[in-house]
C-alpha cells in the first residue's frame, strides 16, 4: 500500500469523521438543556437528507435556498417532537427515562413514514455548488473539493455552535440550565422554552448534517440509525456535551473505520472500532474530554 493511498484514506476518514462529529453535535444541542438524549436525532438527519434531495434534486431549488429550507422544515419537525414526545413528560417525576422511549417511538414513526413516502432506494444529491467529486492531487495528498467542503462546513458549524454557547446571553442560559435547572429558574431563565428552542435548533443542525452528507453517502431513509450510533460512539469517546470532544472522537472512529477496512479487512472494521471504543472508555470512562461527576447531589 502506497503513501498516496494512505493519504487518500485519511482524507476520506476526515470527511466521514466531520459528518459523524456533526451528528454528535446535533445530539449535544438537544442534550444540553435536558440532559436527555433525543433518540430521534438519527431520524431527523435522515429527514434532512430526504428533504435536501426533494428540494434540490426533484424541485431543482438552488443549494443556498434549498438547504436552509430543509433546515427550517426539520427544525419544525424537531419542535413537533418536543411538543408531543417530550413536553407532556415534564411534570412526571423521573421523566428522563421515559424520554428514551417516547423519542425512540417518534424516531420509528419518522423512519417508517419516510419509508412509505420515498422508499429505501438511495437517491443522488449533487455536491454543493462550486465543489465536485473530481479527484485532485497535490504531491501525495489526493482529495476532491466536495470532501473539503464537508470538512470546512463541519468545523465552521461546530465553531458557530460553541461561539453561541460561550459568547451569547441565550447560549450561557442554556449552559446554566444544563448545570442546574432549578438554579437557572431562580435567575429567571425558563428551561422549558430553552428545551423547545434546543429541539428546534437540534433539528436544524441535523438537517444541515444530512444535507452536507448526502452527496457522498447518498440520501436514503435507511441511514438514520447507523449515523445515530456513530454519533453516540463519537460522544462517548469525546465526552458527553463536549462539541470539540465530539469532533475528536468522530475523526478517530472514522479514521479507524476507513483504515481498518483497507489494511485489515472490511469484516474487521466494526471489531477494530469497538475495540478502540472500549479501550478509550476503560482508560477514561468519561471520554477524552469529559469531566467526571458533572452533577453533585
Amino acid at each position, binding site marked *: 500500500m502506497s503513501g498516496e493511498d494512505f493519504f487518500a484514506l485519511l482524507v476520506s476518514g476526515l470527511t466521514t469523521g466531520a459528518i459523524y462529529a456533526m451528528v454528535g453535535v446535533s445530539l449535544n444541542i438537544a442534550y444540553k438543556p435536558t440532559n436527555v438524549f433525543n433518540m430521534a436525532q438519527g431520524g431527523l438527519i435522515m429527514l434532512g437528507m430526504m428533504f435536501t434531495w426533494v428540494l434540490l434534486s426533484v424541485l431543482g431549488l438552488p443549494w443556498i435556498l434549498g438547504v436552509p429550507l430543509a433546515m427550517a422544515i426539520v427544525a419544525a419537525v424537531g419542535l413537533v417532537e418536543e411538543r408531543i414526545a417530550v413536553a407532556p413528560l415534564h411534570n412526571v417525576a423521573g421523566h428522563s427515562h421515559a424520554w428514551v422511549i417516547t423519542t425512540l417511538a417518534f424516531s420509528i414513526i419518522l423512519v417508517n413514514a419516510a419509508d412509505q413516502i420515498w422508499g429505501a432506494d438511495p437517491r443522488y444529491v449533487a455536491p454543493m455548488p462550486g465543489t465536485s467529486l473530481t479527484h485532485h492531487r497535490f504531491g501525495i495528498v489526493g482529495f476532491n473539493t466536495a470532501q473539503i467542503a464537508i470538512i470546512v462546513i463541519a468545523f465552521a458549524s461546530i465553531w458557530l455552535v460553541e461561539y453561541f454557547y460561550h459568547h451569547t446571553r441565550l447560549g*450561557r442560559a442554556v*449552559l446554566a440550565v444544563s448545570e*442546574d435547572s*432549578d*438554579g437557572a*429558574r*431562580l435567575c*429567571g431563565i425558563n428551561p422549558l422554552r430553552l428545551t423547545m428552542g434546543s429541539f428546534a435548533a437540534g433539528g436544524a443542525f441535523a438537517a444541515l448534517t444530512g444535507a452536507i452528507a448526502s452527496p457522498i453517502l447518498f440520501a436514503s431513509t435507511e441511514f438514520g440509525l447507523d449515523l445515530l450510533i456513530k454519533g453516540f460512539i463519537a460522544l462517548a469517546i469525546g465526552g458527553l456535551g463536549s462539541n470539540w470532544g465530539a469532533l475528536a472522537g468522530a475523526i478517530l472512529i472514522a479514521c479507524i473505520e476507513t483504515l481498518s477496512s483497507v489494511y485489515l479487512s472490511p469484516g474487521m472494521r466494526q471489531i477494530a472500532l469497538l475495540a478502540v471504543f472500549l479501550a478509550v472508555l476503560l482508560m477514561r470512562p468519561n471520554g477524552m474530554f469529559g469531566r467526571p461527576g458533572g452533577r453533585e447531589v
Partner: protein
Amino acid sequence: MNADIMLDVEGLAAGYGRVPVIQDISLKLRRGEAIAILGANGAGKSTMLRAISALLSRAAGTVRLAGDDVTGLSAERLVAAGLSHVAEGRRLFRKLSVEQNLELGLYALNPPAEMIAERREEAYELFPMLRQKAQQPAGSLSGGQQQMLCIAQALTRHPKVIMLDEPSLGLAPILVEEVFRTLEKVRRAGQAILLVEQVVERTLAFVDFAYVLQNGRIVSKGTPAELASADVVRRAYLGEAVAVVDHA
C-alpha cells in the same frame, strides 16, 4: 398600609407527590423588614421557600408580592416580578466565570449592556473580592466567596423581597458577620428579607419578627424578645412535641 406589605403568604401547602410537607403557612413581610423562619432540620423550611418561589408546585394557598397576586406565576416570572430566592447549597454555575454568573443573575431583567456593567459594579462594591476573581470559574471560589456571589447575584436584581436559605451554612464566623452586615444594608435600603437560618441567636438579634416551623406547620411566632422568653424555639429545634401556641 397594605402597600407596605411586600410579601403576603396565606394558607400555603405543598409537598412532594401526595405527601404534604408544609401546611397552612401564613406570613407577612413588610418593606424594610427582616423576618426569620426557624426550625429543626426537616421541619419544612426549604420546602416552604421553594413553594413560595414556585420552584415547587403548591397544593393550596395564595402569594401576594407588593400587593399583586402572583399565585399563578412561574418561578422564572416571579424573579422578574421582584422575588429573589437564594437557595441552599450555593447554587452557582460552577463552570462559568464570576462575571458570567453575575450577568446570568440579571437574566430575568433582560438588561442592556450598560445596566449589566452598572449592576456588576454594585456587586463588586458590596463584595470587593469578587472583582479580583471576576474571570475565574465560580467553582474555584471558596465556600464563603461562593456564598457572597450567590447573594450578590440576587441583590443586583434589586428585588422587592429576598429570601435566603441558610446563607451562613458552613461559613467561618467572620464571614457569617459579613453576611449579616450586608443584609443590614439591604434592609436599610428598604428591601424586605426572609431568612431561613440555623444560627438562632445571631438571627434573632438581626430580624424584626420570626416564625417557628415544626413538622411543616407554624407553631409559634413573635418578636425576637417574645420568642427568646418562650422555650418553644429551643424545643422546636430539639424536635420535641410542642402544643400549638395561641397567639393573640
